[in-house]
């Protein structure tokens, strides 16, 4: 079916997004503008229709796994407003923008897609080729970035405490990994399972960066969000996986209070039970395991964690001990006794007994 006129599509008008993306990247200036507008107006309707169709037929897995993984990114501009997704400004294969945030978002989504595809043969966030959408310039001086279950959203930062949130590829990897976790075990975002959800995002966010830089575990900085803090802030990043609790110490932001050991676990009702605080403990365990096992951290240690997130035995309400036990079992299963011992020792060093 063809749609030759620029109009709002009805639910029955099916023009392949691939065709639209193609026009948006390779057409004339006028055609590109039309395709971008159509992608923008069609986004919500298409997503809803596709979701219902897939749920009804159940045939999507065979169809999607049959096709080779292809990146399909669209970057939108909210122009400091709150409407999502906003105006489509760059599509897959399209020319670079003059807007650095647009290009950073595009490149960060691409780096994350490539990492999951190459390292773990994962076809996008849902392993079914999900198109990756991101909105930049969300709200005015907005100090945050998040995955809303369907897309990435980035603020520009206020400039005094935070730079633009597209600046750090590991933050992009972190947010998209929330999508991966949500698609697999969906660790409950509260208490220890919530801190594990956060830690898994830090682990793979950091690995996206290490993969991009081709760094071995001993050469990586193990920081999350380096470059995101504005110049006047006393700090190097949001978190440190290598040394939790040392990323910043600033008169306005306060002092990084992440623990690195169970004896310092923070009991609090704030932040869904300290999910961004206590994630320091499993973060440190991953770092220690990666250093002990050596080499590129995504190859063995990352693989063990990735398979643990996909592990059907892992409960969505997992506490640190349960998660740790599954990593030990997966280390032995995937690699052998040496890796198993390294993972067991790493958890022991942060005060988590992962013995069964």
């Amino acid at each position: 079916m063809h749609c030759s006129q620029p109009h709002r599509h009805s639910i029955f008008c099916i023009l392949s997004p691939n065709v639209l993306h193609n026009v948006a990247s390779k057409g004339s200036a006028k055609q590109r503008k039309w395709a971008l507008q159509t992608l923008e107006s069609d986004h919500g309707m298409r997503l809803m229709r596709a979701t219902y169709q897939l749920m009804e037929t159940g045939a999507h897995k065979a169809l999607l796994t049959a096709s080779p993984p292809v990146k399909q990114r669209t970057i939108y501009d909210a122009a400091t407003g709150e409407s999502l997704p906003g105006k489509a400004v760059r599509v897959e294969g399209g020319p670079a923008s003059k807007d650095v945030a647009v290009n950073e978002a595009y490149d960060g989504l691409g780096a994350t897609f490539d990492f999951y595809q190459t390292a773990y043969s994962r076809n996008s966030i849902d392993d079914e080729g999900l198109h990756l959408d991101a909105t930049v310039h969300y709200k005015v001086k907005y100090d945050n970035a998040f995955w809303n279950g369907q897309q990435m959203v980035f603020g520009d930062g206020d400039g005094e405490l935070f730079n633009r949130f597209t600046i750090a590829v590991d933050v992009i990897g972190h947010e998209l990994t929330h999508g991966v976790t949500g698609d697999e075990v969906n660790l409950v975002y509260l208490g220890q399972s919530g801190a594990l959800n956060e830690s898994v995002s830090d682990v793979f966010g950091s690995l996206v960066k290490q993969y991009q830089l081709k760094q071995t575990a001993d050469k990586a900085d193990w920081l999350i969000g380096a470059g995101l803090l504005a110049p006047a802030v006393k700090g190097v990043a949001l978190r440190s996986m290598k040394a939790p609790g040392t990323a910043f110490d600033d008169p306005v932001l306060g002092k990084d209070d992440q623990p690195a050991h169970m004896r310092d676990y923070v009991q609090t009702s704030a932040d869904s039970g300290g999910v961004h605080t206590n994630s320091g403990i499993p973060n440190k365990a991953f770092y220690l395991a990666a250093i002990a096992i050596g080499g590129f951290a995504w190859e063995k240690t990352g693989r063990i964690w990735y398979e643990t997130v996909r592990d059907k035995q892992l409960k969505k309400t997992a506490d640190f001990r349960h998660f740790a036990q599954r990593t030990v079992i997966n280390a032995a299963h995937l690699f052998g006794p040496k890796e198993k011992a390294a993972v067991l020792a790493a958890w022991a060093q942060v005060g988590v007994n992962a013995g069964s």
Partner: protein
Amino acid sequence: MKIAFRVDGGFAVFPGLARPVTIDVDDLPDAEAKRLRAAVDACRFFDRPEPAVQKGASPDMRTYEITVEESGRSRSLSIPESDGDADLKSLIALLEERRGRRN
């Protein structure tokens, strides 16, 4: 009128920003006190329904915790940042402005 304001959640925890801010509206300059009272009234803070519980629904999104005390009554609301109510957003904007940033 007293207002306690705290931002919960977000992509990282910063103890300095997570600290609750308590505002005694009666001690503020007249113009600012008037603006805050008007914002509390406009969003019907004491009478509005509880916001839909979305905490934790989207990792790294924020929740605004606001408590208002006035004339012997008190109410606390947890407002997810995805809440689109314009009057609530105006109140939150004033409280964020009041909380201030780096001097």
